[in-house]
């Protein structure tokens, strides 16, 4: 189901290739009514469609909250499940893993799930039919077209597959699902209990904007809403509470959602896991977007912002993609409003890809206790960012800058020495760079406003075409460390090592 607001009409279509074939309008009372193709009012929609439910606020926030939760229940009831009889599907191969156990590699993605034992006709040697008992143990373990199963004859004896053409596989009865959609009109909804999405229900505000104002209880997204064949979207929710997501729900997309409760767009506090969905134009607050101890931000985060600190993998780890995230305003060389201690700060491993993101102080692999292997492109932050007090920094930093002074950045104050790692910095600028650090990292065209005080290039380390700032005070080189074509505070070219 797709929908749009077009020339003042709310239109839907069932499939991407279909025409926009149904329209709705609002009457003088603000109620939604169905229209014909010419836009004429042809009657009330009575709050439901064939597989959608429309919720509109009619009373107090608490009364609306009741309607919203009831609407979710109705939408779940409108998910269409059709039983599909088993069929014989072509297989690429069978791989034996035990006397009666096999991994099946089908020609295309399989549609069935883990099921209890069933009886079927099978041709183990590709020629001779016999009755067998099959139990599907795993589905999708090695790809969407793979499954593991046990197979025996009717007396429980093992069956050897092979000796002829690869036999077709008799699939179990499966279920074909058509998700439903819950459409919510703008308004205030105070929900007395959590809004738990654990089914294939698309949830969207009527306008697509964050104007479904939810308060009192939380929204929880659970694994039943995650389906590779039917990716689900959550659009336009605006929570003063939290929106928590279970681990590894990669087929869910969140758009234009706002949740200001703690750990929103992340695992519920005290839990661990991985936030791997897609997030577009969403706003969170403290420890949002895959943050929290034991949590990894592994999803795709695009134009998302945080209104408080420790976001985007803060206190945890990162491995995902972050584009235009942060939420800061950058004007006339200064940043305001960016979340501090974010983008893998104060956590463990900082991997992934950061593109045009903006943080405040202590951001971007600052004070993390694990390894850093991320790439940072065109990112901005403030003091003590970009590998500050890092222990194992092999990140790559391209065209990044620290503003608002920007002291102690780019490998400064490496903890316990950082001589084995091999970070790379290209075209980066800050007030102070690599302060008090002996590094094997390499710097190319990096420029400090003030100094590289206490910096020493050691084995494999290099500063090439860099300026050491107006104060200077960089150290010398040790081992095979080198300075090449660098400029010191008195405008002398430095070549050492």
């Amino acid at each position, binding site marked *: 189901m797709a929908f749009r607001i077009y020339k003042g009409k709310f239109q839907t279509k069932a499939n991407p290739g279909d025409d926009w074939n149904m329209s709705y309008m609002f009457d003088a009372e603000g109620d939604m009514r169905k229209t014909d193709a010419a836009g004429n009012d042809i009657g009330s929609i009575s709050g439901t469609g064939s597989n959608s439910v429309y919720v509109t606020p009619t009373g107090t926030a608490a009364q609306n909250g009741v309607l919203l939760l009831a609407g979710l229940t109705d939408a779940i009831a409108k998910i269409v499940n059709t039983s599909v009889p088993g069929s014989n599907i072509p297989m690429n191969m069978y791989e034996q893993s035990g006397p009666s156990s096999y991994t099946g590699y089908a020609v295309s993605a399989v549609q069935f*799930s*883990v099921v209890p034992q069933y009886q079927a006709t099978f041709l183990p040697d590709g020629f001779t039919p016999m009755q067998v008992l099959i139990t599907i*143990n*795993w*589905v*999708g*373990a*090695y*790809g*969407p077209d*793979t499954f593991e199963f046990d197979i025996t004859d009717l007396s429980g004896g093992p069956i050897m597959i092979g000796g002829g053409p690869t036999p077709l596989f008799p699939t179990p009865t499966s279920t074909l699902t058509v998700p439903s959609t819950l459409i919510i009109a703008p308004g205030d909804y105070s929900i007395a209990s959590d809004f738990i999405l654990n089914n294939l229900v698309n949830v969207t505000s009527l306008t697509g904007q964050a104007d479904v104002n939810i308060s009192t209880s939380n929204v929880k997204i659970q*694994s039943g809403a*995650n389906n*590779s064949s039917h990716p689900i979207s959550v659009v336009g929710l605006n929570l003063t509470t939290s929106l928590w997501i*279970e*681990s*590894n*729900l*990669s*087929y869910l997309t969140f758009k234009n959602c706002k949740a200001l409760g703690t750990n929103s767009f992340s695992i519920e506090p*005290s*839990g*661990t*896991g*991985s936030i*791997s969905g897609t997030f577009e134009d969403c706003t969170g607050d403290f420890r949002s977007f895959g943050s929290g*101890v*034991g949590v*990894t931000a*592994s*999803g*795709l985060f695009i134009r998302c912002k945080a209104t408080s600190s420790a976001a985007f993998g803060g*206190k945890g*780890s*990162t*491995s*995902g*993609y972050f584009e235009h995230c942060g939420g800061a305003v950058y004007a006339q060389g200064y940043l305001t409003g960016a979340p501090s*201690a974010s983008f893998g700060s*104060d*956590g*463990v*491993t900082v*991997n*992934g*890809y950061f593109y045009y993101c903006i943080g405040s102080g202590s951001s971007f692999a600052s*004070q993390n*206790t*694990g*390894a850093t*292997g*991320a*790439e940072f492109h065109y990112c901005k932050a403030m003091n003590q960012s970009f590998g500050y*007090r890092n*222990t194992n920094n092999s990140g790559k930093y391209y065209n990044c800058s620290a503003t608002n002074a920007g002291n102690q950045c780019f490998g400064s104050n490496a*903890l*316990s020495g950082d001589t084995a790692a091999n970070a790379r910095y290209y075209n980066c600028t800050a007030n102070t760079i690599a302060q008090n650090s002996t590094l094997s990292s390499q710097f190319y065209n990096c420029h400090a406003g003030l100094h590289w005080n206490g910096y020493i290039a050691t084995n494999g380390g290099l500063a090439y075409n860099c300026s050491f700032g107006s104060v200077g005070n960089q150290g010398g080189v040790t081992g095979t460390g080198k300075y090449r074509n660098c400029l010191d505070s008195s405008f002398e070219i430095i070549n050492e090592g």
Partner: protein
Amino acid sequence: MKDFKKMHKNSEWVALVNYQLSDTEKQLMDKDEKTDAELLLMGELHKKFESQPSTKEKELLDKVYESLLDRNDISKEDINLQGAHITIENNKLRGVLNLIGDDGFQQLSF
């Protein structure tokens, strides 16, 4: 439900466990300015959220990982792995494998 991660191509799989921080540990975790010793202690605290997978789990995770790489023509030796994250729930697996390739960031979902 059980979660696993592998953050570098040469690192081992890690099982995630829920660990309840004490008040003292929470204070340390939330502290803004940490000494070097405290930062190292943080590293130890983070490890309390991790354990080793069983041999059987490790075999399964390796098989899933290698199968994903094979299917996408990605070399096990050359991959610039950013993170492999797998959840096992009710005998079904789901997760993502994040990597940086020649064309930038890439995510494989399953």
